[in-house]
Structure formats: C-alpha cells, structure tokens
C-alpha cells in the first residue's frame, strides 16, 4: 500500500508542478491544489499505515496495546485541508478578479510589475 501511495504522491507532485508552470492562471490554481493534496497524502503515508486499528482504548483495558493507527497525522491533515480550503477559495477569487481587470488569463501578459518603471 505504501508503494502505491508513494507513486500517487509523486504523480500528484509532478502534475502539480507541471500545471504551475503553464501560462494560464486557472491552471496555476489547479497546480496549487494538486501540490497541497500531495503534501497531505505524504503526511498520511509517513504516519505509518495501519488498517482497522483505531486509536481507541477498549472498554476492558486501561491503555492502548499493540500497533494502532496514529491519530496525529490525521489531525494534521484535517487542519491542513481546512487551511488549504480557505486559501484556495481566496486564490480562485483572486484569479477571477485578475482576469476581469487585466483582461487575459495569460501570465506572460502580467509582467507590468516586473518591468523597469
């Protein structure tokens, strides 16, 4: 399972970077979303994958025994998903406003701030 996920994460990073390097600002947003998903899956995989063993103490025991799924990475991912939701919502609106104001979605035409005055 880890091997499969490793390839999925690598694929997501590759696709995200590819989209980031396109000239269209819409693809830029898609690229950013893919990158953050890849990061989330990476955290999930690095927290060790253990199936069917939630971190719950059984009623007849005082402490957890044996291998159990680590809840910390899941909490981290949950936080990261919420943050990226907000950030991406903002980015989509930003891209829409930029398109309306500049009149193009081509990044190569958005160089005014880089040129010498």
């Amino acid at each position, binding site marked *: 399972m880890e091997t499969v996920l490793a390839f999925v994460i690598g694929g997501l990073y590759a696709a995200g970077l590819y989209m980031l390097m396109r000239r269209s600002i819409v693809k830029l947003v898609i690229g950013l979303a893919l*990158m953050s998903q890849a990061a989330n899956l*990476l955290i999930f995989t690095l927290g060790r994958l253990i199936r069917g063993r939630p971190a719950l103490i059984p009623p007849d025991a005082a402490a957890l025994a044996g291998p159990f799924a680590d809840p910390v990475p899941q909490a*981290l991912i949950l*936080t990261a998903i919420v943050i990226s939701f907000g950030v991406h919502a903002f980015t989509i609106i*930003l891209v829409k406003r930029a398109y309306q104001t500049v009149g193009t979605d081509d990044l190569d035409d958005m160089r005014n*701030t880089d040129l010498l005055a």
Partner: protein
Amino acid sequence: MDILLILPILIPFLTAVAALLAWDRRPVQRALGVLGTAALLGAGLALLAAVWRDGVRALQVGNWPAPFGITLSADLFSAIMVVLAGLIGLAVAVYSLGSMDPDRERFGYYPLFHFLLMGVCGAFLTGDIFNLYVWFEVMLITSFVLMVLGGERAQLEGGIKYVTLNLMASALFLAAVGIFYGVTGTLNMADAAHRMREVEQPGLVTALALMFLVAFGIKAAVFPLFFWLPASYHTPPVAVSALFSGLLTKVGVYALIRVFTRLFVQDAGYLHAIILVIAGLTMITGVLGAVAQTEVRRLLSFHIVSQIGYLLMGLGLFTPAALAGAVFFMAHVVLAKAALFLVGGIAHRLRGTYNLKKLGGLYRSHPGLAVLFLLPALSLAGLPPLSGFFAKLALVWAGLETGQFAIVAVALGVSLLTLFSMMKIWNEAFWKPLGENDPPPAGGTSPALWLPVAGLAALTVLIGLAAGPLFVLSLRAAEQLLGM
C-alpha cells in the same frame, strides 16, 4: 498560566475582533489600531523584561503536558522579535491614520492588519513545528488580502505572483513537517532537538533540513527564490509595504534561525557552508537589482532582499558572536527599512510620484524630510554612529574571527553599493532641482505621517548610541539560541 506569553497573540486578536464589530465606524477602528498596537508593544516589552530576568519561559496550552500539547515558549530572541513587531505595528498604525484611503479602511484594512500581527507574534512564540505552519498560514492569508485590497491592476498582477510562490512554499513546509513527524515522532521542537540526535539516517535528516531551507528560503526571499518580492511589494499602499518589509520576510529568517540552531545541528558544517554561499549571493543580487531601479519602492524592495543576506551570514557563520550580530542586525534592519518605506510614502504625498526621475527638490522644500531620510538610509549603508554600523561591525568581526574572508569581503562590498544606491535616492529625490515641467506638489501631509517616521529614525540613532547594552542583550539571545 503565564499570561505574558499569551498576551502578544491575544491583544491583536481581540483588537481585530473589536475592529470587526465596529465595521461601520471607521473612527473607532482607527483608534483601536493605535491602542491595540501600543498595547502589543507594551506586552512585548514586559515579556522581554521577564525573559531577561527569569530566562526562557514556556506555556503548555490547555494544560496538555509537553510533547503532546502545543507549547508556547519565549526566549530572548522571540521576545525581541515581538517587541519589533509591536514597534512596526504602532508606527504603521499611526501612519495609516494619515495615509490610508477611506475605501480600503471601509473594506477591513484594520481587522486584517491586526490579524496579520497576531500571525506574526504567534510564529515568534510557538514551540511546536506544526503550530508554526498554522501561524504562517494565518499571516499569509491576511497578507494576501492586504496585498490586493483595493484591486488595482498592479496589485492583482503582483498578488498572483506573491500568492503562488508563498503557497508553494507552504506546501513544501507542510510536506517537510510531515517528514519531520515521520522521522522524529514528535512535533514539539524542544523534544525533537533531543530525538534528532538519535535518528539513524543522517542522509534523511540532511534532506529534511534542505526542505526546510527551501520552504523558509522562499518566505525569507533569499537567492535564488526571491523573485516574488520585488514583483509584488511595491504594489500595495506604502503603509502595507512598510509593514510587509518590516515583518514578513523577517518571520522567514526567524524560522530559519530557529530551525538551524535548534534542530539541524548534526551536519552543521555542510549546511552552514550552503547557507553562507546563499547569504553572499543574496546580498549581491539584491543590491545589484536595486542599482538598476528608478522607482523608490522597487529599489527599496531589492534592498530588503540584500539585507536578508546579512541576517543569513550571521546564521551561516554559526558562532555566538555571529548570531548576536544577526539578532542585532534584525532589530536594526526592521526599523530602518520600515522608516525608508514611510519616507518614500511622504515623498509620494508631496510630489505625487514614486519615480526618481520625476522627484526632486525635496531638500529645498522639506529639509526635515531630508534628515529623516538620511538617518535610516545611512544607517542601512552602515555609517557610524548609526545602528547599521554596529550591526555590520559585529557580523564582519565574527566573520574575521572564523576566517571566512570571502563573505566578509562580500558584506563590505555590498555595503558600499548600498551607500551608492541610497545616495542615488538622495541625489534624485532631494538634491536635484525640481524640473519646470513636472507636476505641481500633489497633496498635503499630516502629523500622523511624520510622527512614526521621526520615531523610527530616532530609534536608529538610539540603537547606535546604546549599542553596547543592546549587544550584550543580543549576545545573551544568541547564547540561548545555541543552548549555552
């Protein structure tokens, strides 16, 4: 329960909420802006005094015991940074009273401003690496909105670059935190510092260190990752530019210093050699970029990049004296840089342009402004007896002591070029007579614009005069950073 540790986060938070509640009452928001930042400065000073007296303080949030819950901790370096955040916050809040346009104020400038300060102070005070990520995001999203608030074309174009590169850095940082947890099994930085020594794969630790270096490097705008900064920092109103230049990249540097003094010290020689090379290249490219510019804010933006190199030089040399130099330099550059941006804003008020070719005659018409420009400008270049001289002296001295002559030569050469480009602003904006075809003076100014600039300029002189005691403070901060 240590109230001093939580106050620098709580005060901006409560101020922001109060400002949100007073959404339709702009005078209330403006008054809250000044009061809240003044209270933040007071809380920062109280924290600094307490840490100086009793040593490092820590607070377990929610009473969860140390490695499991979130820890807030403050050593002298964090406390100094909180004081600087309070100072810049107060200066910019007062400046905003006279410069911010009603439309931006109506659409939430003040609440965003305080949420940004909350994120910055949170990043300085947390002792938990994932919590650091969360504070970075709080800071980022408010800075995104402040950057494009107003929706001008240049702001949107600059904003896209700023948002994209910073989000990429965040994704990298998040991935690095994930690997960090996978390797050490903890998120608490103090706990991880112990466990990091027991990790059996040194290669993995070095790769992880480089991931943090790239992620924080993008946020701190180091070579070759700084291109978003000069593309975007000059687009928002000058009060926002001053706030960003004073605080945001510095949080990136703060995180770098924190991580590379506490966590990644096993492979120190290798990593710090890389940091030194980056520091030198950052200084050179930043200052050379500035030489070509004729727009005041763009010129100053390139200087932000260049000054980041000096901070990294202190980290790369990695001796107590060098780190003390970096801490001292941080205090100096935060104040001087913000003052220069605010002076640029006043010049824009008086002449209606930021373009050096169109500015002129300011020395004749406003000699006071000329003095207020010269103090931080010469301080930035490193002329005695101003703050920059002692900051650079400490760094250069540390470089000579460790025998790193190349970086010392670069630092001194870049100082000269900094002086050159400050003199360019002086010649073009202040000394040169105003051309006859140029537009007439645009608008008036108010005491709210002059007061913070005068305060910041006075501080650069004061730091220079009180360099001895302040250097003792920086040295103690550096010794705490190195765990001595």
